């Protein structure tokens, strides 16, 4: 056994030594040879403890594997440690503790185990952690080996072969400056005339117009050169708005990523997909603080990554990640078995949607309650909405990525539709889902009770969210409800269909 090894003897059998003395004394007092002979029994334990030693034992070999290479946040990743006794002698008591990063919470199984291994025998230890956005390095497992008498023990850190980093973030590629063209052809019809398929108008010929667009029939009749204009089709600009306001930083269960984190992840994937489809995409985020952005926020508090320059999308997503983590320090990680139950009664209840949504209700009740006519005005009064509208290009369509835990998205939707922009809402479900929780989560959770949606408060939050999504649809927005336990790809496909 090699590095970081701490070997010590544990004086376990002092009690047996005292017992030996007691029996010897009793044997002498009562003049009873049998009691004297009985002292051999505790003495044999003393001898056992004194004689057993770890001298011939070898360091076990450990290999770590993850069942998913780059999992989405919120999904459970099974970690498997394979411990092998590479030595010649049996190890009767090997205790292994895997170095799980503090940020990841274990939801099933235990990263600890006590194993007994014959020479060349191997055993596996499996447990599951909840993936979070980011890269997490696992420490070397701590190993403690004891003799059968437990009087000789060695503690060591064994370097695990195999995987050591759980990577759950696909970094956003830098915007393709080289290929960027100010006007891209696409399927989105615009009101300006130009090249296309659908007839738009005719105008007088100007030198330089393509010959193919001259109306020859008219030239034949009248002798005037006229140019035909078609309705121009091109991709509009798309603005991805990621909602990371404090109200979104709630989790369905302790240890799971919060709404802002999920929004960041979904927004990132969406940005990648749109950029890959050659759509001019800008990204902005709500709810960032000065401390999230190196150098601070711009004057209108909107960090904006435009498709044609400005700050890079990577910076925006990093800032969102930092904002999402800001409240995480207050979370009390659950213990896996009782995650659902704990968040109902434990100190982290404040982080769960049960309590977060009612508190967030109060300031925004009015727009939802009052009549539709004043909505736009009310919405525009919100400084964030105003700043956002000010930055929106005239032909932009907006994709809001938000868990929709309060009525703010609704007021944004009304303001945006009043300005004539298209709106799509991609909403990760952090309430556990009023309707979907039962079928999607219960089957996955090995303990059953950690399924989100177990508490009535969460069910109410889920129902309110569904009502808000319904309201959003009535304003003309397309909504895509992403249940976190489903792969994001399906939700993205659905949202991209509405965008492209």
């Amino acid at each position: 056994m090699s590095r970081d090894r701490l070997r010590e003897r544990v004086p376990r059998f002092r009690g047996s030594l005292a017992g030996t003395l007691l029996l010897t004394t009793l044997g002498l007092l009562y003049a009873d040879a049998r009691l004297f002979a009985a002292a051999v029994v505790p003495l044999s334990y003393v001898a056992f403890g004194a004689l057993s030693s770890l001298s011939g034992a070898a360091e076990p070999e450990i290999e770590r594997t993850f069942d998913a290479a780059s999992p989405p946040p919120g999904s459970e990743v099974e970690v498997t440690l394979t411990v092998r006794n590479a030595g010649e002698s049996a190890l009767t008591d090997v205790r292994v503790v895997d170095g799980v990063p503090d940020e990841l919470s274990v939801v099933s199984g235990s990263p600890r185990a006590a194993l007994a291994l014959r020479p060349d025998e191997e055993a596996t230890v499996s447990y599951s952690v909840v993936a979070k956005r980011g890269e997490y390095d696992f420490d070397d497992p701590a190993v403690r080996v004891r003799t059968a008498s437990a009087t000789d023990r060695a503690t060591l850190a064994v370097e695990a072969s195999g995987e050591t980093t759980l990577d759950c973030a696909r970094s956003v590629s830098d915007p393709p400056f080289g290929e960027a063209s100010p006007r891209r052809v696409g399927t989105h019809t615009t009101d300006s005339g130009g090249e296309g398929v659908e007839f738009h108008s005719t105008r007088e010929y100007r030198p330089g117009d393509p010959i193919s667009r001259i109306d020859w029939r008219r030239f034949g009749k009248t002798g005037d050169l006229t140019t035909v204009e078609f309705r121009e089709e091109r991709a509009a600009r798309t603005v991805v708005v990621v909602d990371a306001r404090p109200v979104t930083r709630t989790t369905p269960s302790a240890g799971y990523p919060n709404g802002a984190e999920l929004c960041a992840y979904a927004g990132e994937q969406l940005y990648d997909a749109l950029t890959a489809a050659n759509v001019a995409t800008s990204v902005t985020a709500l709810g960032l603080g000065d401390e999230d952005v190196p150098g601070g926020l711009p004057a209108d508090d909107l960090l904006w990554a435009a498709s044609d320059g400005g700050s890079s999308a990577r910076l925006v997503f990093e800032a969102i990640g930092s904002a999402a983590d800001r409240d995480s320090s207050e979370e009390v990680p659950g213990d896996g078995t009782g995650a659902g139950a704990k968040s109902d009664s434990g100190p982290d209840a404040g982080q769960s949607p049960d309590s977060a949504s009612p508190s967030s209700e109060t300031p925004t009740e009015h727009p939802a309650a009052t009549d539709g006519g004043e909505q736009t005005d009310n919405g525009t009064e919100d400084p964030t909405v105003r700043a956002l509208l000010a930055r929106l290009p005239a032909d932009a369509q907006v994709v809001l990525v938000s868990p929709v835990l309060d009525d703010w998205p609704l007021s944004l939707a009304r303001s945006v539709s009043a300005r004539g922009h298209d709106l799509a809402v991609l909403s990760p479900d952090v309430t556990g889902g009023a309707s979907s929780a039962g079928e999607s989560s219960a089957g996955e959770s090995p303990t059953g009770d950690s399924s989100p949606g177990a508490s009535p408060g969460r069910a109410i939050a889920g129902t309110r969210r569904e009502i808000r999504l319904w309201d959003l649809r009535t304003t003309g927005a397309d909504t895509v409800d992403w249940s976190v336990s489903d792969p994001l790809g399906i939700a993205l496909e659905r949202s991209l269909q509405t965008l492209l």
Partner: protein
Amino acid sequence: MMDEIHDAADLSETNWAPTRASSALALLGTAGGVGALALVVGVPKGTAVAAAGAICLALSLWLLTFETWRVPATLGASLLLVPAGAGITAGVGYESLVAFAVSFPAGSPTRVVGQILRIAGVMAVLWGCTIAVFGAAASARGVATSRSVSKCLGLVTRVALLPTNFFIALAGYGLVTNLELGAGGALAEFVSAATDWLFAPTPGEVHLLQFGVLAGAATYASYRALLDLPTEALAGEATVGDVKVADALAALRRSLAGLLALAAFGIPVAFVVEFLLPAEKGLALLPEAGHDLLVVVTSSAGLRDLLWWVTLVAGAAAAVATLVRRSSRASTREVLVGYAPFVAGGAVVAGVHVAHGPILRGLIGFVESRLEPPLAGRFADLADGVVSFYGSETVVLGLMAGVLTLAVGGVFALWLAFAAGFVSDRVAGPSLAGGGLFLAAAFAGTVDAPFWLVLSGLVVALMVWDAGEFAATLGSEVGRRAATRRVELLHGLGALSVGAVGVLAAGALSQAVFSGGSSGVSGGELGNLSVALLGAVAGVVLLVMALR
């Protein structure tokens, strides 16, 4: 080192409790060992009752570890201490009664020592079994810690306080009223003489000392009342005329303090003047007018009554203010938790008051039925005499107070074991279980239990301790949720095989000694000597190895 690497994801308390398989092994071993030893030594009933008491004690300790529901938990723990003490006392008392009844009267004086040793052995087995059951019960939840035991000590002391005081008062009353020594009359005479001396002065004389004592008491009580009552807060900024009330009160307090100092100095002087100085050298030297004034002031019955009432009222006000102040500083829950054991003590007193008749009759009948005729008759006479002298309530209350005092002693012994470091918090339960069982098995050897049972008892005791300690360490390092069963079973098997080897060696050794003894005088001596020498050498070698 490893104990500290509890990952943040795993915070539940239950996970770090001792692992299940080894704990179950320790529990089963204790139950089996205690049952077998109690049956063979012939103390099954007493052991069962004492074990029930031990389990009540463990339950009481468990209730004391509650962080929520503390008031009912403390009350429950206090009430459980009564059956705990009663169970252990009854179990041990019953078996000692039986042992005495069997052994005495002894056939010959030479057998007395042997019988006493036998009774001591039986008692040790009984105590060992009780401790073992308590340890096993406490290890189930790890409730025996130095903290919980010291809390329990405070609790049992407070529970015992009321019954003991009531018993002393009732017994004292019984003594005073029944003894024909005129003690009651003497007491009454003393009281009336004291009140006369204090309150009914002879007119026309100077009574400096009595007056000084009363005035000093009144001053002290007023000072305390002024100090303890929230006078400053109540006065606030209020004024009477041009004087601020708070300032006036402060001035009053200062004057009272001055008066108090004067009284402290004056009372000894008055004592000297009253008792030690001859009359012509003391007050007679004063001028006539001064002397007359002193006579009027010190012998005025009205003034004395006034001082007495001031003392009473101010003293009561000060006491109430102090109590309220103390209670208001602590939260209601803390106050209730503090009073819960007294409530339990009060419940014991009330219970005895209601049911003392049937309890006492049952007890006396039971003891009589267990004793041989001459002893039973003597006991009945004695009991009748005591009951008719003190009354049955006093006797039952005395028994209760005795049980609770014994409980205080027992918990104190437990506390001492923790304080002296014989038992550590981490493995307290297994240590007590294994230690108790070992004691019982060792002493079972002194009361003619079969040798194989003694050896098995020793092995089981050591295995119980080993398994319990192993479970505690494994639980704290790896936790219950991890897969540990294989390692635990392997460890248990290892310990069992070592025990088996030990039993074989001990059996062979005793066989060698006994067969050596029977083969012939010289050969036997030689055989014994060689075995003893071999044993001594082996023992020394092992000792050196163990201490290495």
